[in-house]
């Protein structure tokens, strides 16, 4: 099976967020970029399917500025992915256009054969979850997001999976090729071993120039980036009995905060 995983470099969870000098975006100077959380699950799922259905290969693909994409591509190689492709482009992140990202990735994949293309449910930074379904439309393959328990039945050439939605869990079936927005792999993501990490430093990374694919008439562009005003601390309720504390809280939620149903 030929599996492709699209992975996005995102600021690590502990990164201190600051707005850039012009206020239009995130300051990325000095910020360490890592694999998005759902992308780690997508890689894990790809490797599990590869192990279950030999011979299979896993290719990882990342679009954005070279340095941070190479970091996450090498991390993916160290985990056991076979090939890595860098789609060079201006910074991706909260303020890049997600549809531009999808077009760039589609350009790199057009005409290439794959059975399964995995993306994360959504990236931890911008939380758009737009790229997967856009990519599916651009490449003309079937798509489902919020997917768990993804299995492949080699005899019929069909995938079977679950899709967890608000009301419950749907069961689905689809032939290859398929694009999936993954919510959860069968296992927690594995960690890379030191020899594999060292080896990944020397593995080749293919390059694809997608510059011409990124521009379009309709775009979603970042105009401002703001950190919420730091919360000033809780208003502590004065009370003489638990009963009074409860009454005061319900009143405040209803009358001041207007969140009580």
């Amino acid at each position, binding site marked *: 099976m030929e599996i492709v995983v699209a992975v996005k470099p995102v600021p690590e969870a502990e990164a201190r967020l600051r707005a850039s000098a012009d206020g239009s975006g995130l300051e990325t100077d000095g910020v360490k970029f890592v694999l998005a959380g759902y992308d780690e699950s997508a890689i894990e799922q790809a490797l599990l399917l590869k192990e279950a259905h030999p011979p299979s290969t896993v290719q990882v693909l990342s679009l954005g500025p070279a340095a941070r994409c190479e970091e996450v591509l090498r991390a993916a190689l160290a985990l056991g992915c076979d090939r890595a492709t860098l789609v060079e482009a201006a910074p991706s992140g909260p303020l890049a256009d997600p549809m531009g990202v999808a077009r760039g990735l589609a350009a790199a994949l057009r005409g290439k054969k794959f059975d399964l293309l995995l993306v994360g449910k959504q990236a931890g930074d911008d*939380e758009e979850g*737009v790229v997967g*379904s856009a990519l599916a439309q651009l490449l003309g393959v*079937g798509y489902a997001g919020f997917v768990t328990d993804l299995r492949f039945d080699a005899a019929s050439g069909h995938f079977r999976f679950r*899709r967890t939605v608000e009301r*419950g869990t749907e069961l689905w079936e689809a032939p290859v090729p*398929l694009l999936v927005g993954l919510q959860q792999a069968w296992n927690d993501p594995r960690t890379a071993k030191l020899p594999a990490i060292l080896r990944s430093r020397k593995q080749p990374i293919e390059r694809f120039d997608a510059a011409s694919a990124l521009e379009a008439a309709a775009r979603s*562009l970042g105009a*401002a980036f703001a*950190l919420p005003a730091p919360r000033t601390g809780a208003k502590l309720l004065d009370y003489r009995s638990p009963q009074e504390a409860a009454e005061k809280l319900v009143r405040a939620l209803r009358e001041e905060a207007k969140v009580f149903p």
Partner: protein
Amino acid sequence: MSPTVLLVVEHLDGVPAPATLEAAGLGKALASPQGRLVVLAAGSSARKAAEALAAVGAGSARLAEEPAWDLCPPSALGSLVAATARAEGAEVVLIGGTCFGRDLLGGAAAAWEAAAAAGVTEASWEDGGLVVRRPVFGGRATETRRLEGGRAIVALRPHAFPPLDTTAASFEASPSPPSGAAPASTLRRTGFEPGASSAGPSLSDAAIVVSGGRGLRSPENFGLVEELAAALGAAVGASRAVTDAGWRPGTLQVGQTGKTVTPQLYVAVGISGAIQHLVGMVGSRVIVAINNDPSAPIFRVADYGIVGDLFEILPALTAEVRKARAG
């Protein structure tokens, strides 16, 4: 301005989803004073769903009533949405940001060659273009985006907009172009397991979340948190101390290695407020903390705090909530 706004209806057997009613409210505001709001519904009960929405002042509805739409994946609606937006000359397409809306957003935007944004909590016209705001990084920051090019498709964060009341009114319905088209999809739905996760609303989508921490002391006591959640109609969450100890399953964990939640109201009970927990919930609109240690860091991010013994406060609060909801 006189824009045309297209509202994509999510419905179950003709009953519109709450997220669609919320999008209807925004759609009406964006279309006023001179514009048009058009609703698009697909499936065998599309007409009933559109009728329920006619009160939003929609001049017309576009219907794709073939039963094949009932079982197709949401992503298969992308081409239908694009074709309808073109036929209506829409400037904006709105969808509730549920699993349904998010699975079709990107595909519709690609087919319509539009700009897209998801998880939107505010939207308005500025200088003739649509400007949206949305929380990013789990609510730790907010970004403003301009959707340029005269075609925008936007998925709204659930609970961010007030729902619009609906009462049936008459409207003009026409089949959606391309007329009679059936969805093209290779995906086939083979089953459904209702509400498998839990009885209440799911953690990620709930408007109210009540979370408990190590302060509860035992799995049995954690029931106090569940009782308050039930009284509030809330989802139950937990700190990692609780899930690691096996008191409750890992699916309830909120935080860096658990779920990120952004409800209207988050109640933290017996949770200290470690940074790994905070990153999963600081985006909540209103935060309440109940803890007997006044120096617990959770009070620094909370809006309202009760310093006290949770074993006394929780039963009183649950009783008060029941009383308030009954009255």
